[in-house]
C-alpha cells in the first residue's frame, strides 16, 4: 500500500502547445512514477494541467523527479510546480 507522503501534485501552467502531456508523462514513466489522475482546462487563455502522481515505486528521489519536470517546463516555456500532495490536504481540509 502506498504512503500518502509519496503522492505528488504536478501543476503546469502556460500557453497551449503540442506535446505538453506527452513530454511530461514520458518523463514520469521514465522515473516509474504512476499517474493516478489527470485534469486539464483552459483558464483565461492559459493551459492548466493538474496531475496526481504516485512516486512510491520510483527509484528516483523527489528532487530528481522535480528537476526533470522543471527542465521540460523551461524548454517548453511553461510554469511547472511539483509539490507533495500533503500541503494541499493540510491547507484545505479541517
Amino acid at each position, binding site marked *: 500500500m502506498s504512503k*500518502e507522503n509519496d503522492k505528488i*501534485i504536478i*501543476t503546469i501552467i502556460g500557453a497551449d502547445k503540442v506535446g505538453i502531456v506527452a513530454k511530461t508523462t514520458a518523463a514520469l514513466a521514465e522515473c516509474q512514477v504512476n499517474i*493516478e*489522475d489527470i*485534469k486539464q*482546462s483552459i*483558464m483565461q487563455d492559459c493551459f*492548466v494541467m*493538474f496531475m*496526481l502522481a504516485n512516486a512510491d515505486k520510483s527509484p528516483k528521489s*523527489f*528532487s530528481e523527479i*522535480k528537476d526533470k519536470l522543471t527542465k521540460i517546463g523551461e524548454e517548453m516555456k511553461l510554469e511547472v*510546480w*511539483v*509539490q*507533495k*500532495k*500533503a*500541503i*494541499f*490536504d*493540510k*491547507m*484545505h481540509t*479541517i
Partner: protein
Amino acid sequence: MNFFSEDSILETINMIKVHNLDIRTVTLALSLRDCCDTDVHCVGEKIHEKIVRYAKNLRKYSDEIESEYSIPIVNKRIAVTPISLVGESCKNPDYIYLAKILDKAADEVGVDFIGGFGALVEKGMTKGDSLLMESIPEALAQTNKICSSINLASSKAGINMDAINKMAQIIKQTADLTADGDGIGAAKLVCFCNAPGDNPFMAGAFHGYGEPECALNIGVSGPGVVRAAVDSLRKDAPLDEVANKIKQIAYKITSTGELIGHEMAQKLGIPFGIIDLSLAPTPAIGDSVAGIFRAMGLEHAGAHGTTAALAMLNDAVKKGGIMASSHVGGLSGAFIPVSEDAEMIEAARNGFLTFDKLEAMTCVCSVGLDMIAIPGTTPIDTIAGIIADEMAIGMINKKTTAVRVIPVPNKKVGENAVYGGLLGEAPIIPVNNLSSTGFVQRGGRIPAPIHSLNN
C-alpha cells in the same frame, strides 16, 4: 485519498507566487545549560560543539522541504539559553568571547541569526546579567549573526527601572558603535516585557526556562495573503465578515506552517515545539501589514481607526490559526516593524504614522515598538522613558511588549536609515522633546500591578 481539487491547488500556488506566502523562519531552540563550566574557554568549546552537533543539517533539511512543497523558507535560525546564565558559571567570564563563539557556530552551520545573547532581569540583575548587558555594544559590533534580548519587566514582577536605564545607555552605545551601518547593532537588540521563551522570531528569540533540551519552533507569515482575502470581499462588507475571512485565511497559513514544522522536526529527530501564528511583513511590495489596514478601508496606516483595525486583525489571526495547530506559542499576532513594512515606511515618511500612534497600536499588536528609527541626538533618559512606557503597557495588559528603537548616529528627523534585506529602511521620526530625566533617574522598580479590579 485520490481526490484533488483544481481550485485548491491554484489557490495555494497563488498564495505562494502572488501574495508572498512563506515560512518566515524555522528556529532550532537549544538549551545550553549543560555547557556551564568554571573556565570560559571550556564553556566556549562546549557551546560550539553542541550547536554544530544539533544544527549541522538545519539548512540542508530546510532546503529539501522548501523544494518538496515549493514554499519558501526564508530564515533558518537558532535560539539558545540566555547566555548570561551559561557565562556566569565561569571564574573568568568573557561575554564578548562567547558572542564570537556563537557567531562562529552560526556561521559554520549556515543559519541567518542566532538569538539568546541576553538575560532576564525583570526583578533584578545578577553579576553575570550585568556583565552580559555591558558587553552587548561590543558583542553586536564585533559579530554578524548575534541577536540580543533583555527582559526588563513582567506582569508578575513589575518593571525594573534600573535595568531600563542601563539598557537605554546600551542601546545608544550599540547604535554608536555601528554608526557606519546607521546603528544597525541596535536593530539586533530588543527589550521585552513578558518575553516568551519559545519565540522563533528575531531579534527576541531565546530558549527559555521550562523548555525542553531542544525543539523546532516555526514562524509563518503572509500579510499579502490576508490583504488579498480582505480585498476579495465587497467594499461595504461588515467588519464581522472581514474578521471571519481573516480567520479562514489564517487557518490555511497556519496549517501549512504546522505541516512544515512537523516535517522539519522529524527530519532533525527533535520534538516539534510551537508554531508562532504571526503576520510578519517584509519590505517587499504586497507583503505589508499596513496594506491590510488599507484593504479594510483606512486611507493609510495611522488614520484614526488604525488601532481598532489592528486589534481585530491580531485577534482574528489567533482565532483562525489556533485550530490549525497542536501547539501555538511565541509572539503570535500581527507585527508592526516600521522599517520592515513598505507601507508603514511610507506612512511614517508622510507623517501619518507618529511615534505616539505607534505606541497606541502596540497595546493591541503582537509585540511592540519595533524597528523605529529616531534621531541620534535623542537623550538616553528619553530612550529610557520610551522603554518604560512600553513595558508599562505590557505589564498592565498582561501581554508581551517590546522596544527595538534605533537612535541613528549623526542623522536627524526626516533623514533615512538604511539596513537592507528584511530589516529594510526607516525614515527617522521625531520623539517628544520634553524631559523624562526626573522620573526615570529615580530608578528602583515599579511594583507589579494588582491583578483584579480590571478597569
